[in-house]
């Protein structure tokens, strides 16, 4: 007897069809790449290309409007011999460290204060964002007046306290000038810290505070052993952003002091701009700008590793 091996009519497996475009797009691997493509292209065009072009420029003797010649690491060697470059490096580190630390402490205090209940809380929160919202150039012009000894509210106050006229020269004295730009940067960046940390604070479950209180923790201990550990990842992220922005700050110094007096406030970004655009030395300017990169890269890698470990 021979058995039939034919499939029953009507129950035959349909022929395998190619998936439709909609189905293809629906696949996670395709869809995720589709979503990633625009920002990746954006980053490649506006960050990747300038970055690699900057590296290329830094390896050339490249006067503006002239063709460049490859010189290897000569521009970096020139910077290493340049006393202003080292002054600029020191200024940038002092400026970044001091301003970031002040913003971190002040921002944390601001966030804790804003997390309390008080009248007009929302309005106060909105007003505190103002320094961050106002365009830097505009607020810097206002600071230019505030720091002018003839019009300064600080000098008016100090003179009232008995300091001899005309009071301190905030932008004429090298130390005070550095202190002034650190102060203004802190004023401008504090709301960023404050609001971001406030968002973090609001995610801390109240039960943890209740439990800590029952265990006998005072307000400082609650802050030290509950708030701070839970905020740590956010503090690290905000610090990372803040260090990058502060390290590469340009507008504030360019408008207020242009690096003066005697390069006391000259930062990497302003010095690189002066050399590249003022002196037309694109290669040398790019090498100054790139000098920021290793320090920033190290910091980013260190913080990222720390966060992963956490």
């Amino acid at each position, binding site marked *: 007897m021979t058995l039939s091996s034919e499939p029953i009519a009507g129950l035959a497996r349909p022929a395998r069809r190619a998936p439709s475009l909609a189905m293809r797009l629906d696949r996670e691997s395709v869809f995720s790449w589709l979503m990633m493509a625009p920002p990746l292209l954006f980053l490649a065009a506006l960050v990747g290309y300038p970055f690699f072009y900057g590296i290329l420029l830094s390896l050339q003797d490249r006067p503006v409007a002239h063709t460049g010649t490859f010189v290897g690491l000569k521009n970096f060697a020139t910077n290493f011999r340049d*006393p*202003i470059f080292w002054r600029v490096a020191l200024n940038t580190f002092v400026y970044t460290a001091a301003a970031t630390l002040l913003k971190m402490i002040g921002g944390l205090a601001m966030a804790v204060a804003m997390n309390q209940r008080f009248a007009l809380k929302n309005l106060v929160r909105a007003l505190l964002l103002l320094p961050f919202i106002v365009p830097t150039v505009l607020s810097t012009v206002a600071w230019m007046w505030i720091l002018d000894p003839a019009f300064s509210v600080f000098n008016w106050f100090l003179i009232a306290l008995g300091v001899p006229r005309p009071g301190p020269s905030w932008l004429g004295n090298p130390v005070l000038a550095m202190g002034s730009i650190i102060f203004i940067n802190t004023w401008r960046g504090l709301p960023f810290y404050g609001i971001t940390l406030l968002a973090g604070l609001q995610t801390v479950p109240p039960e943890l505070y209740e439990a800590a209180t029952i265990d006998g923790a005072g307000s400082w201990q609650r802050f030290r052993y509950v708030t701070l550990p839970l905020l740590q990842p956010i503090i690290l992220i905000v610090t990372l952003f803040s260090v990058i922005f502060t390290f590469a700050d340009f507008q504030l110094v360019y408008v207020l002091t242009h690096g003066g007096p005697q390069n006391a406030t000259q930062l990497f970004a302003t010095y690189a701009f002066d050399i590249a655009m*003022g002196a037309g030395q694109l290669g040398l300017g790019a090498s100054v700008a790139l000098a920021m990169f290793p320090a920033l890269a190290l910091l980013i890698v260190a913080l990222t590793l720390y966060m992963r470990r956490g």
Partner: protein
Amino acid sequence: MTTISRRGFLELAGLGAAGAVLRPQDAAAADESLTVLHESSFIKTFDEYFQKTLAPAYEKQTGVKVNYELTSVGSLPTRIGTITETGSGADATMIFGLYPFLFDEKLLDVGDIAEGAGKAQGGWYGVAKEAGIVNGKWKAVPFSNIGQLMNWRTDWFAEVGVKRFPDTWEELYEVGKKLKAKDHPFGFELGHGFGDNHGWLYPLLWSYGAHEVEPDGKTVVIDSDETARAVDFARKFFRDTMLDDVLGWTDVSNNKAWYAEQISCTNNAESILWLAKRDFPEIAQVTDQAQNPAGPKGRYHLMSAISHSIFSFTPDPQAARAFLRWLTDEKQLGGWYASADTYYQPLLHGYDNASMWQVEPRNIPYRDSLATAHLPGWPAPPNHQLAESVAKYVIVDMFAKACTGTSTKEVIKNAEAQLKDIYRPV
């Protein structure tokens, strides 16, 4: 049906081709336009004159539309840099200071236009050639100087018995001491501005017989007795006559201090009086202007040259040349200069006695200063190294550091080391 013979077709085609070649000029120019880049002027009537009078007049005469693209004060070099790097964005540009020497490879030789203007309008001042000729070729047609001279308060100077502006730096120092004692200090920029610092420090250096670099453009000669004397003078001039704040000043600071009646003497462009006449008439009445004081080796001024250049990549060089030639003709230039009083001091001798100088006689020293004006770094030829020295504020900071207490020997040694590194042989 209309048919066309082979002969008829050839005739029509021939006429069409001839028409295309011999098209009327107006029709060709109808859609032609040029873009001229300019930095916003402090004197608004100057830009308005171009936009409302010159550009429409040129369009009416030739059919070519001229776009006057304004860029904010201080951003012109960056804009020119972008245009030259990308090879597009404008056909011609205002250009100033040392920039014709930086961008020379991307600028057309405009010698015919410059020479023609010189011949027709009384000849160029010597300093115009210093500003426009790069390696033997005119790469810019000089337009004007924006002189940096002495601005002084006649009422406060009179309080210490001075009716005429002092003739020498030492005499000015003596007056300044008395005025500071009467709470009317001087204010000369020693910070990192764009021009008001170099505006008086280079002339001071030159007036003591000192220079950065020899005319060979290579040999650094800043370490000299003459420099030491200039630095010593600057130190006492700062200490005994000025506000401490000048060390941190940028270019707006001395104007602000002038209108706040904080200072009795400064070094600035004519704009300080122009703006005072508009906004602070009482201050304008007691403001006067004078040439820089003389030092032991003469009297000098800084040249802040304004010129016009044509980019080598302009799609229609002939159209750009035709426009620049038209613009530098007396008929156009005279009115344009007059629109800004004399804020832009002509570099052609033909305007030495023009009626615009009678509008405000207190501006006449700006004209007279042209004979002793030079570009920064003079007598060395302008080049990339000089631009680097200026951008790094080598001379400004040499003086400023001395004013804050560093020894003369040390500030000069530091400046020399910086200059030697900048001018190192390639």
